[in-house]
């Protein structure tokens, strides 16, 4: 599991800071600690997919979203993926806050970069898995993104049995705890399409988000 330094800096809002030995050392230390102490966990499964207008069905559960239905157009299967860094990541942020707010912010950013990197690694694994079934993957899409309501988390959790398998829980406002956790749909189609946009470009916050890869507004 490799945590990319430039991604940590992006989350930290430090992408444009030049060489800074103190910050770089801190990032290096935190990354090392995370890599040695955190064991991420995941689960994913392939499901056959069924559509009705802007609704798609996994098992017999409906999910309403025009954005995701567009993303899944032409797909025969969908992968549901969940992964987490577990509670130790949240504890490490808390612990860092006691001694240094910089270390806390770096830990927070490095955890975000780590779960993203882990998600990407799993995504590659899923692509290979799909390829062996002659399927091609679409970009991943998470509950709460676009018009896919956060409420879908409850069904998502039930279908994958996430709390039991990974120890992730939902609080009353449907946020995941431990916080460094990701759930996502990945569409699988028998036809290879290259034109589908990825991540930031597809997001409706694209122009306002400070974390956007394209800069966003300041």
């Amino acid at each position, binding site marked *: 599991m490799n945590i990319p330094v430039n991604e940590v800096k992006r989350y930290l*809002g430090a992408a444009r800071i030049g060489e800074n*030995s103190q*910050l770089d050392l801190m990032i290096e230390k935190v990354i090392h600690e995370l890599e040695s102490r955190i064991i991420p966990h995941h689960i994913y499964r392939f499901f056959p997919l069924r559509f009705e207008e802007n609704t798609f069905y996994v098992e017999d559960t409906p999910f309403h979203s025009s954005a995701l239905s567009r993303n899944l157009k032409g797909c025969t299967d969908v992968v549901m993926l969940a992964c987490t860094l577990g509670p130790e990541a949240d504890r490490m942020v808390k612990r860092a806050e006691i001694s240094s707010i910089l270390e806390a912010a770096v830990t927070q950013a490095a955890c975000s970069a780590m779960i993203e990197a882990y998600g990407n690694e799993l995504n590659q694994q899923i692509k290979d898995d799909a390829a062996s079934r002659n399927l091609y993957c679409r970009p991943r899409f998470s509950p709460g993104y676009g018009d896919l309501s956060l409420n879908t988390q409850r*069904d998502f959790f039930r279908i994958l049995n996430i709390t039991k398998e990974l*120890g992730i829980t939902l609080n009353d406002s449907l946020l995941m705890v431990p916080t460094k956790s990701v759930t996502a749909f990945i569409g699988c189609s028998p036809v290879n399409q290259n034109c589908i946009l990825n991540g930031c470009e597809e997001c409706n916050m694209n122009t306002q988000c400070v974390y956007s890869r394209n800069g966003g507004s300041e």
Partner: protein
Amino acid sequence: MKPILEKLHQQRLYFDGGSGTLLQKMGLKPGELPESWNLIHPERVVELHSGYLKAGVDVFNTNTFGANRIHYPDNLEEIVRAGVRLGKQAIKETGRSDAYVALDIGPTGKLLEPLGDLSFEDAVELFAEIVRYGASEGADLVMIETMTDSYEAKAALLAAKENCDLPVFITCTFDATGKLLTGGTVKSLVPMLEGLGADAVGINCSLGPNEMVPIVKQFLETANVPVIVNPNAGLPKTRNGMTVFDVLPEEFSDIMKEIAGLGAKGIGGCCGTTPSHITKTIEKVKEVPFCTTQSNPITIVSSYSSYVEIGGKTKIIGERINPTGKKKFQQALRDHNIDYILSQAIEQEDAGADILDVNVGLPDIDEKEMMTTVIRRLQGITSLPLQIDSPDPKVLEQALRIYNGKPLINSVNGKEESIHAVLPLAKKYGAAVVALCLDEQGIPSTADGRIAIAKRILEAADHYGIPRRDIIIDGLTMTVSSDPLSARTTLDTVYRASHELGCATVLGVSNISFGLPQRALLNSNFLSMAMANGLSCAIINPNNASMLGALRSSNALLNQDEHFEDYINAYAGTEELVVTTVNTASAPKQNVEADASLRSAILRGITSQSERLTEELLKTTEDPLTDIVNAQLIPALDEVGKGFEAGTVFLPQLLMSADAAKASFAVIRAAMQDHPQEIKGRVILATVKNDIHDIGKNIVKVMLENYGYDVIDLGKDVDPEVIVETAVKENIRLVGLSALMTTTVVSMEETIRQLRAAKPDTKVVVGGAVMTQEYADKIGADAYAKDAMATVRYADSIFVK
């Protein structure tokens, strides 16, 4: 009551297998709650149980795994009672009156505080309710299973023990590396479960029998009670969108036979196993001879994820979390400055402590409340086991109750009153106890006298059902200058407690040298001698290099440091010494020479240098406020702040400077302890109800504090009522609220509404990822702050005219 416990110690018991897949075959729909079938399809539930009874199981679980108040708010009692009744009906129908109905209890699906939002006591009550219904309906035992969090396991066990007299078994779920999802291991978990009174412990679910073998071995090495093993039929695989388990009965039963041969006493299955898996298993396991449960005499204390074995290498119990003789610590307690206490924990852990003593008693504070808060917060940032140190049994009980792991109590002594107050608590909560060799007559001056008291405490412990391994004898260190024989007496007591009584031992060391010069010399030599006499734990300050030197050297010399690993790691090359934070480690020496003003140190964000320069400046000035704070600190902070606002300084640089300034302020405050601090104003900060993101709020807190504000930090997920109540009670003029999600801005709006009604003169500033000026206006905030600096500026506009 049918004597299942006697049976479990005399013969192997067979447990049932999976139910989910079988119920699905009978027609359970995805998303349908299985326990609802107790009411709508009772005959199918009886059929499920009957299948296993016919296969020959001794114990089977009621269909109540997910039956709790969260899933069944309206008809829980009905569901649980029906579940037990159907179990009994199955026994009747199959004529298996020798079999036992286990009230099945699974996890709540919620994560407990502090990480999650379910409080420990709420969790206990949630489980208690199930236990009350199930026990009164006539279940034969309680089976807690599939626990992935040690804290939730503790809540369930306590609930079972407090609400029925039935035997309680508990099995937890581990991953292939032998860890719980929350980080615990067999060795950190099992001592806690046994201590809390589990009659059998074990592992179920998630893994197949093959993957469980190494973990079962760890169980058998650790447990003093029978071990239950209920694996899945292999690892789950997906076929056509359905989960399948593909280890068939033949293979499953072969591995279960091996597992029984290792010494497991309870044998069954979990997901994907069927009556035919169990039939085959019983057939083969019957050939394996039964052996009685081994006892493992090792003393273990633990936290939610790590454990310390007491014995062998001498362990360090850090003594710094204690207000005795420490002005700064006392002030922190009075100010409710928990962060200071936590920083003491981190320092000691980094210095090499194995266990932390926690004493927060002061005559003028609520010790019970403080102890609870400190233990909760400590367990949020360190995994070291804690030694709970209080003379007040009420404080002890509350602390033992909420502690996540197997704690150590400091202490019991030979007085009748102490024995009868402390030992029952140790028994109920499964703690290990430090036993002081003193009684109503005082401290005996001979080792004979002290050993006699130790024996009396051991007898009392035995009477209460506390195993000898959980009593750690303190031979008592007395000042050698007032009695030249005292060191000898203590050393003899340690030797005899260790060699004659076979107990673990502990000493507070530094008392020995009281009233003599060069105390470190005497202390460290005395420690070495005590270790040579068998000392298991030393209560010391781990930041003290000479004590740590004596400890590491003696461990090495006494063959308790394999390959001299600890010793070499600590002392091979001086540069590896005392590197505690990157801030200190990374301060480049040449920079110190280049520009050695405090202002520059803060601008560049170098914490160690800021501390050192502040200390130097303090020596040369009479008026630190004018000469240091106003002349250097504030201008430096302002420069960084303005740069941040202008976009030339980035967040990490702002934070570096904030850390450096904070360190400098801390030095100044320590020096001016007796002078009243000047503050600009008092501000409440909180992340609103249902929101759990608080790093942004914490950054704002550090910034406000550096700019001279007293911040009342109410934390995250804070009820509107709490914020309003605090604002009214403390007469607060400014409240800062943070929300990260659109979904939690609702709570922000509600908080503002309540605040306006109760205290209209209080201003509200809001921030957080989703906030905009427009949004802030809409929910009625007085101001929107886009970052920490903007919050500081707004606060200044209110408090600094």
